[in-house]
């Protein structure tokens, strides 16, 4: 975790008394320029933000219609469900796991949501059932990983297909259209002072996640377990509970994202997310500077990652390039961020 919003270096005063004995001082002798580089590499979120701004400026200049308020709103609306899912997977990655089943959870949840809606006609009830489905699915993954000790990527690769199959069974393989519901339709069309509800919702979720990760006992424990689960356990943290909870949160957030996406497309279908969604979600997290070894990652970084992805997607469409290149670009993005991240960690001599 980067320390949020505080000067991490640059002549900070000594704390805790005796400044006499030679304290190991990393990089005090670096030049001013080196200081800026250091700031950027220590706080990758700033770098990401700069990258996003540069992209937007470039896109506004070179991509026709990109800069219109309606299009920006559109990009943000598209980024909203991705952000929510990516924040979910942030929890999983922070604790040192991985979840490849996100995309299948999307399909499962959308089918459950619409089916319950058709059966009962109550949106709150179907919402609750849909979210619960996600959480339970994540719990199963977490238990298999933590207690049965099956590697996370295998567990979730297997459960991807299992969730997909269950979704197929429920929907009998067909597309279910969402019964008209004011509340649900409003989610997609409504806005608050010009900001779409979906974006507001994503913002609320992000705020909540930020508070949990940075200002709660649970969030701190997640980071501690991700960096060093042995020390965390010996310090009295309930490691298994934390790990399983993170998987549950990951899938729970994926479920919420699925509800948001379903509100945009107004149908329930097993293929709603699929492998592409898993891909986008992990890419958002990785681009956002999340470490795959656990412990390091920020909510803000992940959201910027999601917006970057949607900006690229949007520009590809507006430029009339075939959208089919999109996935290749995502793959390239993952590999590039991995390489940058590995080099950065090495530069900092960071231990993971």
């Amino acid at each position, binding site marked *: 975790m980067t320390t949020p919003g505080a000067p991490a270096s640059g002549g900070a005063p000594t704390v805790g008394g005796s400044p006499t004995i030679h304290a190991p001082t990393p990089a005090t002798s670096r030049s001013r320029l080196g200081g800026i580089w250091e700031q950027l590499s220590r706080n990758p979120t700033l770098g990401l933000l700069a990258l996003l701004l540069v992209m937007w400026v470039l896109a506004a200049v070179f991509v026709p219609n990109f800069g219109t308020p309606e299009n920006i709103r559109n990009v943000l609306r598209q980024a909203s469900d991705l952000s929510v899912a990516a924040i979910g997977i942030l929890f999983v990655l922070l604790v040192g796991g991985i979840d490849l089943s996100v995309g299948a959870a999307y399909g499962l949840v959308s089918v459950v949501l619409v089916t319950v809606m058709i059966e009962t006609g109550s949106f709150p009830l179907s919402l609750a059932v849909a979210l619960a489905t996600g959480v339970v699915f994540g719990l199963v993954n977490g238990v298999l990983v933590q207690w049965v000790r*099956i590697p996370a990527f295998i567990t979730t690769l297997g459960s991807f297909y299992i969730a997909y199959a269950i979704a197929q069974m429920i929907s009998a393989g067909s597309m279910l259209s969402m019964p008209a519901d004011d509340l649900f339709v409003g989610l997609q069309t409504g806005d608050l002072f010009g900001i779409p509800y979906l974006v507001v919702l994503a913002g609320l979720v992000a705020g909540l996640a930020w508070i949990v990760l940075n200002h709660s006992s649970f969030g701190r424990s997640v980071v501690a377990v991700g960096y060093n689960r042995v020390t965390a356990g010996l310090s009295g943290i309930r490691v298994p509970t934390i790990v399983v909870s993170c998987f549950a949160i990951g899938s729970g957030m994926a479920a919420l994202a699925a509800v948001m996406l379903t509100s945009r497309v107004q149908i329930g279908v097993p293929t709603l997310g699929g492998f592409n969604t898993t891909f986008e979600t992990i890419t958002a997290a990785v681009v956002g500077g999340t470490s795959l070894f656990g412990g390091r990652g920020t909510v803000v970084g992940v959201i910027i990652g999601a917006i970057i992805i949607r900006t690229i997607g949007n520009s590809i469409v507006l430029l009339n390039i075939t959208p089919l290149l999109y996935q290749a670009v995502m*793959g390239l993005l993952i590999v590039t961020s991995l390489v940058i991240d590995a080099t950065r960690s090495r530069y900092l001599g960071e231990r993971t």
Partner: protein
Amino acid sequence: MLSHQRDRLLRAIAAVVLIVVTLLLVGQLVPYFATLSNLENILSQAAILSVVAFGMTLVIVTGGIDLSVGGVMSLVGVTEVSLVSVGVTWPLAVVVGLGVGVLLGSVNGLIVSRLKLPPFIATFGTLGIAAGLALYLADLVGRPILPSDFVSLGNDTILGVPYLVVLAVVTLLVLEVIWRVTSWGVHLRATGDNLAVARLSGVPVLRVLSSAYVVSGLLAATAGTMLAARLGTASPLQGEPFTLSAVAACVIGGVDLFGGRGHLWAAGAGAIFLVSIRNILNLQGVQPFMQDFVTGMLIILAVLVTVQGPFLRDVLGSAIVSVRGERAA
């Protein structure tokens, strides 16, 4: 003195007998299963899957995983079809296709060995690149039909044996020979078993690691070519299911996901088993997604056995040792 070898042989024979008996039984119960054309069908499919699974085995033995194989298969198929559609002769197209596989495999190998990144994420990235490029290329050229002599390789038989099966068996033999005759096999296993020990013993671990991914890329490309030949064309999605199935075939074949242990032929047997199961489900009218479900379950079950298996064996083993120890004292 040779008890371990005999042990292993006996167990292998037992497994084969078990599979044959099971299949015979199934043949009695499931109509059409035991027909010649169906068996030919199963073997052809298993041939393609097992070639991918061989590559996957090499990677898993080093303690890694290659999630990019499905994407590579699609991309290679589409590349070949595209090249043929613009007038390149098909053998040349195949060579280029295999080159693409080697290239992507090298990228995987480099990232995993030099940057020391987790294999699943590195190969996940190349999966995206390959699958995306496949979609793009396929869109450019549409879905032209491949020349008939190429297609016949994927569908015809020689002395009643499909060409594909012959190719898979030849691949297996070549790999097994290299594995056994050179130090490659032992180096792969040592790297996956205990990286530090392997390095200290002078095994060139970085090169060994990379080689596994490169060969996996090459074999995925071969399988992609086989698939294109069998289907007569290439869709950008046709390779996708093979990633999961290849992992499943390896795991079912007893390849240890934690590295150090595994046999190529066993992965091939795993492929036959998996394809047979899916075939039976198919014949019984089970929907395709349920077949994926079964594959997913099989993976988790098989890993359960391998993960918890050593534990059980250790417990039993230490019990035996302590009994022996008491007797010796």
